[in-house]
């Protein structure tokens, strides 16, 4: 009816925060998956895989919802390209978390006690990285309210600074973990080693995507 109200696009930031939260829920399944692997509870792994795949689907639905709010003609306080890259990196996090669950369902693998502690340490570090991203990204609504400037922007930017460091740490842990895995080549069959390597690469990809998402968030603020 009245065109002035049509002038206002619906805010993408509310659904975007929802997306971030949902993606993080996907990541939260990784630790229970690892525990099930240690306990060799393969039924539990299948249950968890179902859960993460449902969560990933829900995250996808929210992502489409966000993209619906971003037609080309919208004039936004942040760059659309940065925003889309941010979403697609978050999307990658959810995808990789699902991949991780799928890998565990492919084969009944056992976790070697020699790498167990390091593996869990690495998983916790991944969780640290995505957690930092979550803390920064849920501020998007407040950032919009403060027009992406001032104290609120500073808080988020300093959070994101920490993110790079956390990812770097995760990288180093991945390398050291890989070394440990290969040092077991006499004891383990090659397929298991390939399997471990797959797990490590997938987890590393999660940390990587989280860092990239954080970079996009920073660019969005600094626009």
């Amino acid at each position, binding site marked *: 009816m009245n065109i002035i109200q049509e002038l206002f*696009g*619906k*805010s993408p930031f509310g659904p975007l925060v929802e997306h971030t939260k949902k993606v993080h829920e996907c990541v939260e399944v990784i630790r229970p998956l690892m525990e099930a692997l240690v306990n060799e509870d393969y039924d539990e792994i299948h249950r968890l895989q179902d859960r993460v795949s449902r969560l990933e689907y829900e995250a996808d639905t929210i992502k489409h919802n966000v993209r619906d709010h971003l037609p080309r003609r919208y004039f936004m306080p*942040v760059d659309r390209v940065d925003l889309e890259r941010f979403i697609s990196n978050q999307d990658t996090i959810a995808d990789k978390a699902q991949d991780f669950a799928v890998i565990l369902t492919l084969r009944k693998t056992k976790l070697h006690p020699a790498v167990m502690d390091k593996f869990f340490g690495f998983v916790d570090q991944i969780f640290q990285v995505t957690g930092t991203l979550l803390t920064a990204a849920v501020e998007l*609504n407040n950032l919009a*309210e403060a*027009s992406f400037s*001032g*104290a609120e922007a500073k808080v988020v930017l300093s959070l994101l600074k920490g993110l790079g460091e956390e990812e770097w740490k995760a990288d180093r842990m991945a390398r050291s973990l890989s070394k440990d895995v290969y040092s077991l080549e006499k004891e383990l069959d090659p397929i298991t080693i390939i399997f471990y390597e797959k797990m490590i690469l997938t987890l590393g990809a999660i940390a990587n995507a989280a860092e990239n998402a954080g970079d996009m968030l920073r660019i969005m603020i600094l626009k």
Partner: protein
Amino acid sequence: MDIIIIATIALLGLYMAWNIGANDVANSMADAVGSRALSVKQAVIAAGICEFSGAVLVGSHVTDTVRKGIVDPAALASLPNLLQGEAAALFIIGMSAALLAAALWLNLATWTGMPVSTTHSIVGAVAGFGIVAAGIGAVNWGKMGQIVASWFISPVAGGITAFIIFKIISKLILGQEQPARAAVKVTPYIVFFLFMVVTLATIYKGLTHVIKGVEWLTDMNTFLIALGISALATFVSKVFVKRKLSGKESLPLAQQLESVEEVYVPFVIISSCAVAFAHGANDVANSVGPLAAVANILKTGTVGMKVPVPLWILMLGGGGIVLGLATFGYKVMDTVGTKITEITPSRGVAADIAATATVLVCTRLKLPISTTHVLVGAIMGIGLARGLTGIDSRIAKKIFKSWLITVPAAAIVCIVLFLLGRAFLLDFVRQLVLAARIA
């Protein structure tokens, strides 16, 4: 039998006023409804009161015969080979055609949801009549140039002002580490500015016409009165904001921002009411100006440049606006309220202050600008300051196009109506005019 003419034109004026109420008023309250400061019902009532009082109290009691002097009536009277009373009859038909054309155009705009300017509709219609009745030369093209310029000036001026005001609010309050504390410090200054603009606009918009012959109401004294009122409002707001926000400095940032927005609710109501008031004062003449002009012709028999507007005509105009608001504007306001959810009270105040200030300055400079255009520009300005989460640029372009098309469209409709009226009604109206003069 002048009653027939008066009644006909009064009806047309009422139709025009109805359209103003239906199309325009929802826009003036958009910021208040959109930011949820007022419910739709409250906004309709507030807008009704503000528009009516603006129209009746401050609506200009003296109006140019032809809005904004776009056509020189003398050019009509000096046409060669006119029968007795023909100039007056042509003028009456022309004014009726202009009113009907502008109202029809507005009705179409309301129907399709375009926020066009009522002022520009009537100006375009009258210009159309002037061209056909008295030739191209009868139209004041300098004035027309100003109107064309205003298509660019009003949104740009409104946009820049809103951009600056929002940047200030954002920098000094929302961007601070403790927005609640910053708001206590800064808000009184913003309130001072808001009240300065509102009181100055109210007085300049024509309060001087109401209290006629009051010599002391000079620019200097007006300024002093505004200063006094603003100082008082500043003091009250200081107490209010302090009471509302004290102790909230230690809350999390998100909650502080929320409480700051809550504090701005009464201000966005006041500023929106000011926009509605100014709108009523400014735009009522669009509907009743031609009516007043015709009433004067019938009374004096001559076509003058300026005519008085009797109170009953202003009441009719104000009533028509309220009627339009109550019957149709209600619906528009409802959609505005449910759809514009992205504007918060702080943004609403910034847009309203910018709109009122820009209209005030341009009125002082005698530029014919439209409140609607300025408001749309102000909203865009806040978007540029990264204050809004998304603006549909396609709609913005559509709005701009509807502005460009208003003047020619109203002119063409008016030309058609005038030619029809002249072909079929000229003799009839001339007889009525002559009869009125003898009586």
